[in-house]
């Protein structure tokens, strides 16, 4: 198990180098000339050239092997790619070009609002999705099951954006049941008031697809031999479903759940934007719109690290919940 864990950690190194390389290429190839963003709209050609030298953008993009062969180690190391690697792997992302603010500080301040929105939506959503799916499986082919399936398909068909627009316009705008937008300056109980509607909309948006998925997973399990055995032994339907089926359905549930966890940190782009919640989703949209490459790079890299970490945890959890899985 330990050797498996170490091997998986080592596998992450080339993947992370690849991600850093891709973000560097994107930054250089589609990001345009970084000097343009600093020079201002009246800058002349000469002023821009001066800036390029002074800001270090005149350095070579890649390491120059010739310099290494000539024994010039400093010259070999002075290139933009190595600079990018050094800042990315030490998590020193620098300052946002758009907001002139420390990116680490931006991530720290954005994570709280994002998590206050995504975690409750995730917990409530997961519980409701699995519970409804269990009830459907428990009463499969009943009127209840068929109604839920139809409603789930309808739910999947409603675009997320439409749900947000209508929810905000009617529940907040027209009927005044919730605040239209906002988030308190300081974290406290008043957060509940501001995230209530976005959380409920987030839960509603995911309900249809979630119920369909878990219903299928659970129904697959109900056809297994051990379920027939349990029933033959006289275990009640509730005991079968919660005591046996749910336990055995955990592998696909874990796969689904753990994959979602990294996205909880990165927030919800649409909900944060529509409800003016200053989270990381909002930050990412702003960064993309403003071509703020240092922020995009930081969020991409942090997101990738969390995602890869979550995948590793998924594998470890498989072994914990299913004795048949061994990690070698």
């Amino acid at each position: 198990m330990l050797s498996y864990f170490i091997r998986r950690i080592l596998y992450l190194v080339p993947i992370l180098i690849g991600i850093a390389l891709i973000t560097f290429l994107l930054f250089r190839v589609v990001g345009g000339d970084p000097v343009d963003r600093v020079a201002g709209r009246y800058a002349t050609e000469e002023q821009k050239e001066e800036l390029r030298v002074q800001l270090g953008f005149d350095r070579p993009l890649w390491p120059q092997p010739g310099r290494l062969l000539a024994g010039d180690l400093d010259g070999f190391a002075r290139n933009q790619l190595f600079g990018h690697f050094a800042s990315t792997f030490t998590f020193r992302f620098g300052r946002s070009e758009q907001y002139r603010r420390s990116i680490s500080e931006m991530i720290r301040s954005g994570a709280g609002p994002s998590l206050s929105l995504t975690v409750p939506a995730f917990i409530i959503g997961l519980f409701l999705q699995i519970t409804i799916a269990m009830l459907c499986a428990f009463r499969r082919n009943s009127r209840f099951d068929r109604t839920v399936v139809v409603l789930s398909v309808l739910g999947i068909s409603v675009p997320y954006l439409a749900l947000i627009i209508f929810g905000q316009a009617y529940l907040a705008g027209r009927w005044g049941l919730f605040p239209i937008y906002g988030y308190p300056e300081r974290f406290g109980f008043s957060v509940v008031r501001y995230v209530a509607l976005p959380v409920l909309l987030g839960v509603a948006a995911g309900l249809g697809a979630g119920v369909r998925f878990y219903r299928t997973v659970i129904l697959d399990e109900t056809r297994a031999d051990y379920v027939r055995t349990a029933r033959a032994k006289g275990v009640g339907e509730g005991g079968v479903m919660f005591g046996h089926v749910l336990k055995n359905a955990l592998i696909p549930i874990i796969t689904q759940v753990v994959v979602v966890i990294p996205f909880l940190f990165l927030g919800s782009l649409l909900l944060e934007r529509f409800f003016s919640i200053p989270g990381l989703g909002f930050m990412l949209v702003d960064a993309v719109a403003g071509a703020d490459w240092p922020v995009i790079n930081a969020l991409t890299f942090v997101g990738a690290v969390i995602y890869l970490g979550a995948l590793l945890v998924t594998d470890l959890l498989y072994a914990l919940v299913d004795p048949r899985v061994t990690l070698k």
Partner: protein
Amino acid sequence: MKLWLILGVVALVLLGLFLSVPFFYRPAGVGEEGVMVRRAALGAKIRGLDPHDIGDTTSAAVGGQIFETLYTYAYLERPYRLLPQLAEDFPEISEDGLTYTIPIRRGVYFADDPAFPGGEGRELTADDFILAWKRMADLNNRSTNYSSIFAGYVEGLDEFRAYTAEVDRVDYDLPVAGLRAPDPHTLEIRLVRPHNFLLYWLAHLPTAPVAREALEKYGEDLVNHPVGTGPFRLVGNYRSNRFSMVRNENFRRELYPDRAAEELAERGLLEDAGREIPFIDRIEWTVIEEAQPLWLAFLAGKIDSSGIPKDNFDQVITTDRELSPAMKARGIRLIKAEDPSIFYYGFNMEDPVVGENRPLRQAMSLAFDRETYIETFLNGRGMVPTGPIPPMIPGFREEKGNPYTRYDLDRARGLLEEAEEIAGGPIPVLRLAMPGTDTTARQMGEYFRIQMSRLGLEIEVDYMTWPKFQDAAKTRSHQIFSLGWLADYPDAQNFLLLFYGPHRSPGPNSSNYSNPEFDALYEEAIALADPEERIPLYHRMEDILIEDCPWIFTTYRVIYALYHDRLQNYYPHDFLYGTMKFQRVRSDLPDSL
């Protein structure tokens, strides 16, 4: 099973909590007795409040309430007029136009801040400006304003800038020959060449003073701790999406203006003339980037003023361009104001096909239906342009007309025949670069393509991201491109500089227009100190451009602003951001969210 139970309990508690919100949430309460609160929305996040780097309208809208500059604009006068603000008077300018001596107003104090000894703001001095401008020059600060304001003008400042690139720690005490403070209330600026637009730039927020104490306390983090001399000071963290400002207790005695343009006076904007400002006690700001929540919040009375979202335009404005009765009944009022800006399709004059064929450019300009364009894309909020000098800028000639900005397909076809003779055959497929890949950019690109197809020209549209578009402009590889320009100050030079030969790409002359006659007039005009004397020269330059057609002028924008009638003394200003000190709000209002 246990885990499932825990998850279930947590989920049900959370669900119950969120579902109970409608039972305890009250959208409107009673405002604090006697406290005047202005509620304002921002359509984008604030980039930062370090004065040297304020360049976007959102940061300026907020920063304008905190920071002040040496000069400012009269709030209610049109045409725009400069006034001394932190300066006691207009500068004394030496005969050679190279030395400006500016008296600094006495009795101006920075807002209280922990940066000052005892937390009490101290009196403003000339050194605070010198420090601020050296910070703007400091390359490590990456100010986007240096090239516009000081580059190439102030003696020794470019050298100071070069020095900042070479050292790890910049010494702001290092003298700069062109910036001196002979005494705490006198600022002397020495230039290397005359700069007849310097006063306009000294009314620009990036030139606001910075207190050394604040810089020493906050260092790089000064961007998050604005300390100014303006009428309001920040409380809390402006990086969150909601934040407040309160009155700066140290703000000097200032009175509401007693002069206004006739139209503004008729709107009752002089009723408070001579009263002490500011009136407002607190400003509550909210960042709302999406049009729908902004509009809902405005209708619900949670913010005092707003623009009109494109999708709600018909609900608000009648076919005769007035406010709908339903909106009037809600106590909403409308202001329509011309905007000093110009939008256009530019030709790259170095391109052999379009650059060397004037009849072709004229024909394309005549074939562009501006009326339909303005109706389709701006809900009618625009005017057909007459030239590069827009309304609200001295020198604008509404009566002048432009023979190439009316829609005349027959004449365009005649000119196209001439163009084909010059080209020696049919015009090849032309390329239009649009600075955006979003739906609006695509619709506008398609509109242009269809218009030109009616003339018989084939257009290929390339939708580019902004960085790619900029790169192509810099390398002069566009053929035709779409852009706009908003004025930085009320002088036509701010528009005509876009055609001056030496400003060609990567400078601001993206059309790479070069005309010796125009350049000579431009040089003659900018050497004149008196703005009135420049205007006849500007008109001659404009005439050259109208005939040469380096741009297809598409629109002068008209701003439609809405506000609730409880908001008083409100009127948009194109160059002044610190306008909330003039405004007042009736206090019998619902409280904040």
